[in-house]
């Protein structure tokens, strides 16, 4: 569990950090330090195993049926990266404690930073390629959040968006590449993939896989032509730049390339794609870095160039080049992280990062200046520092590429070395010369603990540079062996190898760099230049912005020409698709093999003449006579219910009948808020030709739809039924479910999980209706009491509903129904109780009970009912859901799966033996939810009239000005 803990602990820390108060800077830092230090201890304890060449694996079943396992594995390479991520992380959080200002909301910062740490460890430790991509995208996401940390700044938002778009797109390419790779190998397991190198390289899909994976790696590691996002990511707080954008995240790309080296490398394609991108990047990055004015900008381009160096080494692909690549990854992480921290200190102390302003800082910041100068020297490749060693290995490797004749790679390397020295000089120039007068703040040495991470890193640079064999060699060996295996080359990390060509190249680079810097200062006005000479037209960011703009415009164009906000065309298309698509998908129509099972029944036909007539009539009058249409639809509904009863579905008939009642009441309540109906003919222009055409078209679609549906139904009905699971339900309902009404047993027992989902949906819909109605603002002309309720003769029309209830409005009917309430309650209980064995059950009983309450509302009025009957539909909803869930969970107590029914047989006095299955309690939950849903929706709707009626009659119409009654959203 150690590996799982390594990945999980940072995420847990992230959660914890997120909930701390905004000013808890110290607590946040201690938490982050504890997480990083704990991780270091855990990872450190793995060293003996890893150094012995073991691969430690932990597996958790994820989707075992799909062959997907959550695999964490650590070998030498992964271990070294884990240590790098955690060690730099530890230093960065210490540094960040002093860097972040008290005004910054630190919980967000540390939460994101720790989440990044976890994601990065996930990338490094993943033993499954798909899982690796998931963590990979998580690093992109956390990087996005961290770059955009100061989201009030436009450059931060822009930089975050750019970095995310580029790296996440690369991540998608990587996913595709990994899928191709997994397809070639037949497994996503890293160990299997690494062992299948021969097969991968021989496969015809090798090139697509390589290109896609390279796209992922190159975007992440900011390689040309995707390098432009990194300088814009410098809008992040400096600890983030130091951690993510120089030491760890941008190394994920090169890490992946090293990781997959055994599987993918060794072909000309590999060298050309990876090496080519690397060479372009190292040249361009180093060159542009010289001309930056922003400290962090210089460091960003320098990072790009060094990443290019590493990529080039990986592209060269010889075992020794891989060793050099891993070595340079470590070296670059140490000196670049310390340089970023130094830049942060300078920014923090002086208030600016502009090298045109900064100068003479060695007087005010002597210690920081010394540290930064040493780190810059490491970056430039000065002997006795770590950068020198790996750079010399790089020079040596470039010499091997072209053989004796082709030297272009070495020239490129040399040029990069020269540029590197030049920009390092440019960087340290801020410490020399006269102290600048124009600084926003007078600088002082930073707090001790802010500087100590830098000191530690610079010390590492020195130790590795002077004593490589003692310090870094064992670690490097562990990582290299894990990657190269038997191909492990002989090499010797030493400062002095005698006079050879790489040493000559290093010397030339140093001398050339100094010369170049001097020339540039003198003749090219380095401090005043605004553009980079030669390559200033090569603006990746601009190309990116243009592309995004075109994409947005293109999307807008497509939306304008292919989309519509109008519902009618959408519905027409939907209906046409409903008609057309099944025809395309279905094969030949089946033969009409079977004759009808049931004979012709004139009475059945007669009721459907009525039902169908009602449907057509409803369609005809729905525009002008809403009430009539509603009644007609109700007629069709009743005929449907009768059909259910006729055709052996008594439960359905009951439900349909009750739903019909409730729906009609619901729509009646809603009708009131619709605009007055349009008088046919009166003042309306006769429909034009266009309208006739439209109607004919719709009629055609409707007729076709009806015919198709009829034909389909008939085709099914004259075919014998195939075997279904119905037989199982019928045979087991009584024995297994303890009820003879199979439909009810189906609902509350066999498929009760389904029903649980359904009542949840009901509750959600009811709450949505309630929420929508809380914000409901009727149209101003609907506010007044409708004309139908106003009549001079009727005294009730001048009364509010409360007054009506008090003065005996509809008194006889009201009292009659009040007396009926207990009887209807009993009926509901009766239907509920018998539900398991005879037609009935929670749904039906709930609806009956709701209707019982509803008629009280209708006749006695809302005010009277609510003053006599405390009904809280919200609670009914909650209670019902809890009841149903608790019943299901109860099964767990007895070791059965969720929602298993248990039947108890109880002997009750008078009543006799009673079956009490736990499904009964579940059904009670259904009952309660149905009552709650119905009541909540209908009562909420009814209350709208009450609200509007507070002003009686015409006054409301007058009081409500046309506009103020409406809310603008």
């Amino acid at each position, binding site marked *: 569990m150690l590996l799982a803990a390594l990945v999980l602990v940072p995420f847990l820390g992230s959660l914890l950090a997120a909930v701390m108060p905004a000013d808890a800077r110290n607590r946040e830092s201690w938490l982050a330090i504890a997480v990083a230090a704990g991780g270091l201890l855990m990872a450190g304890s793995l060293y003996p195993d890893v150094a012995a060449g073991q691969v430690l694996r932990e597996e958790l079943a994820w989707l075992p049926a799909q062959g997907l396992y959550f695999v964490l594995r650590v070998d030498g390479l992964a271990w070294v990266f884990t240590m790098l991520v955690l060690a730099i992380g530890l230093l960065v959080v210490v540094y960040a404690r002093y860097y972040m200002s008290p005004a910054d909301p630190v919980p967000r910062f540390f939460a994101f930073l720790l989440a990044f740490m976890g994601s990065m460890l996930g990338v490094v430790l993943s033993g499954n390629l798909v899982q690796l991509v998931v963590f990979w995208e998580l690093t992109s996401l956390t990087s996005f959040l961290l770059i955009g940390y100061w989201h009030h700044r436009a450059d931060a938002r822009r930089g975050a968006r750019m970095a995310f778009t580029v790296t996440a797109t690369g991540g998608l390419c990587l996913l595709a590449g990994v899928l191709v790779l997994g397809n070639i190998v037949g497994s996503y397991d890293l160990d299997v993939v690494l062992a299948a190198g021969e097969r991968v390289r021989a496969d015809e899909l090798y090139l697509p896989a390589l290109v896609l994976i390279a796209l992922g790696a190159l975007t992440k590691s900011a390689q040309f032509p995707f390098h432009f996002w990194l300088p814009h990511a410098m809008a992040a707080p400096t600890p983030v730049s130091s951690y993510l954008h120089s030491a760890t995240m941008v190394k994920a790309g090169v890490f992946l390339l090293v990781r997959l080296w055994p599987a993918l490398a060794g072909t000309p394609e590999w060298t050309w794609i990876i090496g080519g991108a690397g060479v372009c990047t190292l040249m361009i990055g180093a060159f542009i870095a010289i001309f930056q004015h922003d400290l962090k900008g210089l460091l960003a381009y320098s990072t790009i160039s060094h990443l290019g160096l590493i990529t080039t080494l990986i592209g060269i692909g010889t075992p020794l080049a891989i060793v050099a690549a891993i070595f340079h990854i470590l070296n670059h992480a140490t000196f670049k992280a310390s340089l970023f921290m130094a830049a942060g200190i300078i920014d923090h102390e002086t208030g600016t990062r502009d090298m045109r302003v900064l100068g003479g800082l060695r007087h005010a910041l002597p210690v920081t200046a010394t540290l930064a100068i040493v780190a810059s020297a490491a970056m430039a490749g000065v002997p006795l520092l770590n950068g020198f060693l790996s750079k010399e290995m790089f020079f040596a490797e470039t010499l091997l590429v072209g053989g004796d004749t082709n030297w272009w790679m070495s020239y490129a390397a040399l040029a990069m070395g020269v540029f590197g020295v030049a920009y390092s000089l440019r960087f340290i120039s801020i410490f020399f010369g006269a102290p600048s007068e124009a600084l926003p703040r007078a600088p002082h040495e930073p707090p001790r603990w802010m500087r100590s991470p830098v000191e530690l890193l610079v010390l590492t640079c020195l130790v590795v540079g002077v004593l490589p064999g003692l310090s870094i060699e064992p670690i490097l060996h562990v990582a290299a062996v894990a990657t190269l295996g038997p191909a492990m080359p002989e090499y010797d990390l030493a400062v002095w190898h005698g006079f050879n060509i790489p040493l000559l190249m290093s010397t030339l680079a140093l001398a050339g760099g100094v010369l170049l810097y001097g020339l540039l200062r003198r003749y090219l006005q380095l401090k005043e230049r605004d553009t980079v000479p030669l390559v200033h037209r090569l603006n990746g960011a601009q190309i990116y912005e243009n592309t995004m703009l075109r994409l947005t415009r293109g999307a807008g164009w497509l939306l304008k020409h292919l989309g519509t906000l109008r519902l009618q065309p959408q519905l027409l298309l939907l209906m046409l698709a409903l008609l057309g698509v099944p025809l395309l998908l279905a094969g030949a129509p089946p033969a009409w093999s079977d004759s009808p099972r049931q004979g012709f029944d004139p009475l059945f036909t007669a009721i459907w003449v009525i039902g169908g007539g009602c449907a057509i009539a409803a369609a005809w009058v729905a525009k002008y006579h809403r009430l009539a249409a509603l009644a007609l639809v109700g007629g069709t509904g009743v005929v449907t219910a009768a059909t259910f009863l006729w055709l052996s579905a008594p439960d359905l008939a009951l439900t349909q009948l009750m739903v019909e009642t409730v729906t009609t009441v619901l729509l009646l309540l809603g009708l009131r808020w619709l605009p007055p109906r349009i008088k046919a003919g009166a003042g309306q222009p006769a429909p034009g030709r266009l309208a006739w055409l439209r109607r004919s078209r719709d009629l055609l679609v409707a007729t076709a739809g009806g015919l198709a549906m009829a034909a389909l139904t008939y085709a099914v009905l004259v075919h014998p039924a195939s075997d279904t699971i119905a037989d199982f339900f019928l045979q087991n309902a009584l024995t297994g479910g303890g009820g003879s009404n199979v439909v009810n047993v189906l609902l509350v027992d066999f498929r009760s999980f389904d029903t649980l989902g359904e009542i949840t949906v*009901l509750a959600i819909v009811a709450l949505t209706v309630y929420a929508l109605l809380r914000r409901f603002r009727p149209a101003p002309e609907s506010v007044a009491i409708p004309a139908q309720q106003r009549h001079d003769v009727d005294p009730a029309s001048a009364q509010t509903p409360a007054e009506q209830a008090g003065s005996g409005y509809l008194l006889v009917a009201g009292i009659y129904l009040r007396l009926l309430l207990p009887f209807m309650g009993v009926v509901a209980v009766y239907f509920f109780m018998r539900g398991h064995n005879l037609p009935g059950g929670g749904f039906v009983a709930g609806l009956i009970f709701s209707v019982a309450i509803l008629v009280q509302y209708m006749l006695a009025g809302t005010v009277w009912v609510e003053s006599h009957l405390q009904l809280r539909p919200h609670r009914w909803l909650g209670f019902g859901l809890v009841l149903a869930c608790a019943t299901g969970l109860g099964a767990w107590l007895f070791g059965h799966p969720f929602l298993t029914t248990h039947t108890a047989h109880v002997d009750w006095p008078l009543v006799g033996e009673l079956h009490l299955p736990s499904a009964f309690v579940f059904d009670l939950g259904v009952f309660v939810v149905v009552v709650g849903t119905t009541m909540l929706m209908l009562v909420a709707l009814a209350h709208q009239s009450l609200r509007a009626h507070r002003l009686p009659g015409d006054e409301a119409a007058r009081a409500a000005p046309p506009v103020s009654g409406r809310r603008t959203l």
Partner: protein
Amino acid sequence: MELTLSIAVGVMFGAGVWLILRPRTFQLITGLLLMSYAVNLFIFAMGRLWVAQPPITPTPAVDPALFADPVPQGLVLTAIVIGFATTALYLVMIIGARGLTGSDHVDGEEPRE
């Protein structure tokens, strides 16, 4: 009987489609109601037609061939109740839209022709 039911389903569905293509919100809700009847009956008919053979088993050992198919019935029962809930939701949407836009046209504004 099969033919009668098929035609009935077709008539209700056709009337529903016609109403769904109309411009007023109330027409739309009526159309949805009719369509849901049609579709419920259609799903119900997948269990074929049985007269006087409800799926209520008096004894444990029964011949399944003598009872109506309970599965479509169970499905349709829940469909009816959910249909009611969605009708309520749609109703609230249309009266809310009418209050907000001042129009009961499905597009939220009167046609410009």
